[in-house]
């Protein structure tokens, strides 16, 4: 069953020279209880796609197409939905985990309150009812000493623990969909392994669906069930994980894997240098400079 469906999504940036497309007609279906990886290099439009789901696009961008969130009562259209509709969905049915937990958590508010705020707002829980739930969440994400953690502040935790707490905050209201934007990119590889394991466990145990945005194909290979590869605002390939890594269809996916140490299609360093030098590029407009 699909929980989130994106169809023909277009996002463009208003510029003095007219609209400039950022996302150019993408389709994506997130199935219930699965991890769907959205891969692509910087500037490919993957983060903007995730932001559009929660209506978090900057004012300079306009979107068209459709993003629907399924529920027992029928589907809700998220694109262009009024504020009160999105307000009831954000943090409640669709929650987000960002790249850097030191900026996504509030530095001056104790962990306990950051965890219970959502519950009190969305679920109308009283303080004493929210507390045991907060403890349970911290246990679920394996933060040591949950009791003590409630009273602490973000700076008192390591980067990996902070990201676990950010995931707990996102899970506070038992959402259907978790949008995770590069959740392990800021972490060390030994810490990343723990977060990936946690994501997999959460999905397998609670049936939450995850849209995992990352540029790291190694991470995709470890946890994603389906992978969609984006480039310059369009989807170049979407396939089950194993198929994508062993039998990629599109040339761009093949070139990504060729440059990836340890992949089935890995090219030798000699070939890579040869290809790099064989295409003498004059100045090209920088991809990274796009807003």
């Amino acid at each position, binding site marked *: 069953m699909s929980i989130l469906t994106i169809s023909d999504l277009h996002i463009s940036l208003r510029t003095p020279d007219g609209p400039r497309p950022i996302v150019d007609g993408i389709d994506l279906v997130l199935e219930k209880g699965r991890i769907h990886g959205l891969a692509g290099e910087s500037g490919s439009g993957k983060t903007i796609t995730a932001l559009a789901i929660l209506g978090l696009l900057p004012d300079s961008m306009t979107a068209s197409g459709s993003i629907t969130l399924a529920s027992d009562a029928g589907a809700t259209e998220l694109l262009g939905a009024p504020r009160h509709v999105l307000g009831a969905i954000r943090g409640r049915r669709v929650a987000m985990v960002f790249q850097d937990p030191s900026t996504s958590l509030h530095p001056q508010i104790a962990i306990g309150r950051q965890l219970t705020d959502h519950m009190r707002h969305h679920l109308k829980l009283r303080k004493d009812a929210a507390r045991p739930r907060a403890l349970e969440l911290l246990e679920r994400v394996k933060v040591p000493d949950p009791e003590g953690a409630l009273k602490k502040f973000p700076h008192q935790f390591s980067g990996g623990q902070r990201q676990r707490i950010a995931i707990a905050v996102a899970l506070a209201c038992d959402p259907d969909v978790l949008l995770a934007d590069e959740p392990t990119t800021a972490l060390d590889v030994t810490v*990343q392994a723990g977060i990936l*394991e946690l994501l997999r466990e959460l999905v397998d145990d609670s049936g939450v669906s995850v849209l995992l945005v990352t540029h790291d194909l190694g991470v995709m*290979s*470890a946890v994603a069930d389906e992978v969609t590869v984006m480039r310059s605002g369009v989807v170049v390939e979407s396939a089950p994980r194993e198929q994508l890594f062993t039998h990629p269809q599109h040339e761009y996916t093949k070139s990504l894997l060729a440059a990836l140490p340890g992949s089935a299609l890995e090219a030798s360093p000699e070939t890579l240098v040869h290809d790099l030098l064989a295409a003498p*590029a004059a100045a*090209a407009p*920088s991809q990274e400079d796009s807003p």
Partner: protein
Amino acid sequence: MTAPVLSTSDLVVEYRGRPVVRAVDRVSLEIGAGEVVALVGESGCGKSSLARAVIGIEKRASGSVTFGALDVPVLGIRRRPRALTGMQMVFQDPNSSLNPRRRVGDQIGDGVRAALARGESGSDPREWLERVGLDTSAAARYPHEFSGGQKQRIAIARSLAARPGMLVADEPISALDASTQTSVAALMRDLCLEAGAGMLFISHDLSVVRRIADRTLVMYRGRIVESGHTETIWQDPIHPYTEALLAAIPVPDGAGRLPDTPDDADRLTWTETIPEALERTAP
């Protein structure tokens, strides 16, 4: 190995505070001409402090750094001794290491002038652009007209134009897109070998390091815990930290295998000193 181009002995870098943080703890290393040595480790382990101390832009608490026959002084207010321009650095982010207001050709020209000042042969900046796979017309352009990978290649061209005997590269590929990381790293290796220079290549990405480094140094909490022949370390790590680091890398084979997560008990063993893990040789 003949006389090393670069060596450090019992190098210590400390940061003031309570308690004093010892970022680099008695590190001794030697890098020869035409040798690529990688320094790997996780954030905060002291990799960048070591690189900066080697090049002289970080104060040393004790220990020495020698480049050729010269003692490397800590950089002061004055211009560094001319002979030391034979040691060049490539930084992580070309957006901040290149001057946005000067043409690419002029900036590579800085390197050429440094080489001339040391009595080395000069060169044309455009020649270096070609060597890194950019069109010669790039010389007249400004850095913002290039993508991140191209900008980093310009920074590499600039440092090589100074005809260095040693290149110190601090995370030179981590700001680049994944599809260009390995190729830029391999290009750096090729160019260094061609020039007969040694390279200290700092990275947290072990899978790329494996492709380009002759020797690898694994750093944890300021100390080198394992060192030696890259492939030997990769195939058969001895130190528990190296083992954990290698096991935590997700393999992009599509098999859906979760990498190994070290637990707290494992982490305690990472500070151990294991003499057999040092100076490992090829089988």
